[in-house]
Structure formats: structure tokens, C-alpha cells
């Protein structure tokens, strides 16, 4: 089972989000970068599935050259190859990002499974996976927190290619319970954190990934209809915290508050 995983380079901020003076973007001068937890789970799942069923994992990112850092992280987790679609920026609208992903896929052999995060960690549109699926005529489900391949027939909808693993069992949590889908491959699946517990890359893994060659594809997609004007921090009208004391001595004050709230 050959799998492509799409990952996005996003700033890793802590307690505050610094913005550029004109509010056009997150000020990343003093920030590190990462991939979102949903996508980390997607990479982990792909590595596990190929370990079980064979095949290769390709990680693909759309962004500036620096996004190679995130591809290498995924390679260190066990992915086999990386594709960087160089658009100079990650700040594209979802239509343009989907176009760029498709450009990166164009020269790859057709994968059996395309994995996405359910939503990117910064922009959070929740759209790119669905748009790519539609463009490639593939079935797609999102919000998935349980995934496995199953052998056997797929109600005649899928072609029974692949090495025996011809359908996917994908489940997700809804407000009322769990929904299970059975999809033929090839398919697109967007996953959420909780799917698995991603591994930490090993040192040898990191060293190997550092030297790996990445395939770079240049792309300058047409902008779509959603145009970002600027970013703001929401107003925070919380007053500072009221101190209730230190250590065990604070217990009576805490229980006073609990009593006032009617909780004890």
C-alpha cells in the first residue's frame, strides 16, 4: 500500500502569539516550526500501515524551501521520501493549496491512500483534503480517529488492486457516538489526533533524514476566492487571577470558592 501524507509547516507558539506590526501575519522571527498533531498522527499511521502491508510513504508539503525541515522530521519518523512543492509560502488559500498539492502529486505514481490532517494547525480551513479528493475523483472521509485496511470485496465499487488490502475501515467520533465507513482504495482520509500515539524520531533516523534527497516541484498557483486581509488577537476581557494562597494552606480558600459555586 503506497501512501502519500500531506503535512504543513506551521509556527509553534507558546503562551503568546506574536504578530507582525502590520498584523498581516504571525511574526515568526523568534519562533520554531512544527507540523500539526493531526498530521503527525497521519505520518505515524502511514508508517505503521506500510510496515504491516508493505509499500512506501511519501510526505508532501506546500511551502517555502524551509518546509524541508518538516519533511525531514517525517522522514525521521519513518517516511520513505519527501516532495516539496515550492510556492515560497504556506500562506495560500485552500483552493490554491489544493492546486499546489495536485501539482506535487502529478509526477508521483498513484498512491492507494492519501492522508491529510483534519485541519491545518494554523489556518484550520478543513478543506484541502476534500478539494484534492474531488479533483482526483477519489472517495474522502474526514475526522477519522480509527483506521485499518481490510481484505475482501468492497461491494464492487473499488478495483481490487493492491496486495490483498482492498478496503479501509475508517471510524470517527461524532457528538452522538461513532460512525464507521468502509472505503474502497484508492481513497483520501483526513485524520485527527487520537488516531495513534506518534513516535519520537530516533537519532539514527534523524541523521539519515538529514541526508535524504527531497524532490522539489516549483509551483505558483492562482489565488482562490478567499483572501486574508489581516490577523488580530481577540480581546481578552479576563481580569488578572485572584490569588487564593500557597500550598496546602490555600485549601480552605479553595473550598470556600467551591462552596460559593455550589459544587460542594
Amino acid at each position, binding site marked *: 500500500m503506497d501512501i502519500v501524507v500531506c503535512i504543513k509547516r506551521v509556527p509553534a507558539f*507558546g*503562551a*503568546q*502569539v506574536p504578530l507582525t506590526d502590520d498584523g498581516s501575519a*504571525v511574526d515568526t522571527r523568534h519562533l520554531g516550526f512544527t507540523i500539526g498533531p493531526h498530521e503527525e498522527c497521519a505520518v505515524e499511521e502511514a508508517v505503521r500501515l506500510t510496515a504491516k502491508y508493505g509499500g512506501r510513504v511519501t510526505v508532501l508539503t506546500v511551502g517555502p524551501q524551509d518546509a524541508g525541515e518538516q519533511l525531514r522530521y517525517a522522514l525521521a519518523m519513518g517516511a520513505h521520501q519527501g516532495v516539496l512543492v515550492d510556492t515560497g509560502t504556506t500562506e495560500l488559500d*485552500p483552493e490554491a493549496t489544493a492546486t499546489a498539492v495536485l501539482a506535487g502529486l502529478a509526477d508521483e505514481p498513484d498512491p492507494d491512500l492519501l492522508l491529510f490532517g483534519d485541519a491545518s*494547525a494554523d*489556518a*484550520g*480551513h*478543513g*478543506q484541502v483534503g*476534500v478539494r484534492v*479528493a474531488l479533483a482526483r475523483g477519489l*472517495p*474522502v472521509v*474526514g475526522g477519522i480517529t480509527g483506521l485499518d485496511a481490510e481484505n475482501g470485496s468492497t*461491494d464492487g*465499487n473499488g478495483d481490487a488492486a493492491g496486495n490483498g488490502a482492498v478496503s479501509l475501515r475508517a471510524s470517527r*467520533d461524532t*457528538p*452522538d*457516538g*461513532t*460512525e*464507521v*465507513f468502509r472505503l474502497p482504495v484508492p481513497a483520501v482520509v483526513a485524520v*485527527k*489526533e*487520537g488516531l495513534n*500515539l506518534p513516535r519520537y524520531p530516533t537519532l539514527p533516523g534523524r541523521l539519515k533524514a538529514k541526508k535524504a534527497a527531497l524532490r522539489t516541484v516549483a509551483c505558483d498557483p492562482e489565488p482562490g*476566492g*478567499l*483572501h*486574508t*486581509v489581516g*490577523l*488580530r*488577537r*481577540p480581546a481578552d476581557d*479576563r481580569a*488578572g*487571577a*485572584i*490569588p*487564593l*494562597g*500557597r*500550598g496546602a494552606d*490555600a*485549601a*480552605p480558600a*479553595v*473550598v470556600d*470558592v*467551591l*462552596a460559593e*459555586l455550589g*459544587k*460542594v
Partner: protein
Amino acid sequence: MQLVVVADAAVVPELPAVARSVAGRDEAVEAVTFAGVEVPAGDLARELGGHGVARLHVVRHELLDDYAPEAWGSALATLIDRLGPSGVLAPATHRGTEILTHAAARAGLPLATNCVRLTADDASGHGGAGDGTWRLTRTRSGGVLLEDAELTAPVRLATVAAAVETPQVPLQAADCEVVESAVDVPPELARTRVAERVASETGLSLSTAPVVVSGGRGVGGADGFVVLEELAERLGGVVGCSRVATNNGWRPHRDQVGLTGTKIAADLYIACGISGATQHWVGCMDSAVILAINTDPEAPMMQRATYAVEGDVHEVVPAVLAEIRRRGGAAAAAGSDRSAAEESEPAAAPPVG
């Protein structure tokens, strides 16, 4: 026309008002729902009529009788093509977002998700053939940031968050007419029908519990959560955690509060040994009262909380439990003292004089 999508078992009341506010002067607000939505169309129509919606389109096809994201999205794209609205709004729920994303991709239209404010650039210019523009604000990173954006398209599509600014527009109650609409759905879309459904256990869940007692790195390990469990139980709540607790395998992911976990709005959130990174904060910030327990008074959670206790969770939480027991005991004792006193009162009351 502006079209409001009813994707779930309830009408989101803010949607018709937002639709009205972005509608051109002569534009009607209509609604669409699917045969598989469990509430009878008549009930939905009555409710929508109260919000000034004049017509409810019910799309029908055998593939729409149960939830199937691709089929529902495809049917919606067909209806958008048929009715030619200038705007379509869906609630930013699980389903609302999923269906509108599928419809947008199929119709080749842009989409703005998670909007908390929407205005039409020029309300009088709608209805024509050209592109129109909405100015909008959407949330990013779970609400850490707001993004101001423009959406320009022949049909503007957006999902609207529950926290949307509801515009004050006059709405006249209408008799909402139900119109059945048969649509074609490509048969291969049966591939993403829900194949199986497991109902969740009823009872307190992280997203609905009135009290959440949450632990982070400061709890130190899975064992450290035992006292948090006890406190949660005492307070009629459940245990939550930070991503560090999940990643260390101390708690299952379903307990995680935050951007990539669950977003909660409890009466009371108790954050034990959690620093308050933005990605955690967005998950708990809608709680009414937040109590932070942390050894570091400078931790962001200690600054942003309602109440702060500086100290080691391993000392503070057991002390709070002991105090609750002591007072409970005292109250019980006081209660039994009182009844004992009452019983003995006649005898104990010394004759006056």
C-alpha cells in the same frame, strides 16, 4: 436569494439573521435540508418561519436517507446550481462544515469556514451575474487569532460559528412553505455512506461536564491522576488533561482539552500543573470559572485564570480533598449534633426560674 443549510437535527437560530444581513434588498432567505435529517420538515419549517424564512427545500434521494458526506455534499451542490443563491450559510458544526466543504469543492467555489462575523460589501449589488464580496472574520488556531478576510465569488459560501455576532436586522415571521426537491446523486457516492454506527455511552462527557479537573506535566505521571479523579468525582465532574499528559501515555486522547482535543465550556475548570499554552487555553477559555494550581506563579495559566493557587499539585489537591471531607464531616456532625440537641432539648432545657 440567500440559502441557509439545516444540516443537523436543529435550526441554528443565528443563521437566518446573518443571512438576512448579507442579503440584497430584494433577496429572499430560504433554507435547505435533507431527507435524512431526523426532525420532520414541518417542524423545521415552523421554526424557520419564525426566523423569517419563507421556503424550505427538502432534497430527496435514497442516498440521502442516512448520513453520507459525499452524497449530501453533492446534493447540496446540485441545489445551489438549481436555485442560484448568491450566498449559502451552514452552521460550523461537524456536519454543516463537512457538507458545505464537499459542496464547495464540487461546485468549484471558495468557502470561508468558522466565521464569527459576516458583512456584505455592497448589499444592493447582489443578484446580478458578477462576483460579489463578503467581508468576514473567521477564527484561526481554535480562536487564538482572528482572521479578517474577503470572500469573492459568484456564490459566497461560509460556515458560521455559534459565537457569531448576530446582526440586529428586522425579521418578519413568515409562513414557511416546504418544497420537495428530487436530485440526482451519482450512485458511486454510496461508497461513503455510514456503514455502522455505535451510540456513545450516556453520562458525563468531557464536552458537557459542568466541572473538569485537568492535569498536565505537573501531575508527574498516570498515578498522579488518582487524586484528580477523586476531586472530579466529589465535584460532579470529569478528568481532563493537557497534550503532554496524552503524549506521555498518562491519559487517553479523549481526555485532552485544547485545539486538537476537546473544546469545553464548563462552569468550573481546574487546571493542575498546566502551563497554559495557547493551544491548551483555547480549549478551556470558554469556561465560566478557571482555577489554576501551579508551582510557577508566572505561568500563563496562573495569570489568565479566575483564581490561582501557587503550589505543588501533590500537596494542594489532597489538602483540598481533606478540607472538603472535613467540612462534609463537620456539616454531617453539625447536622447530627443539631438533631441530637433538638431531641435532648426538652430534657436539657433547665427550668427557668
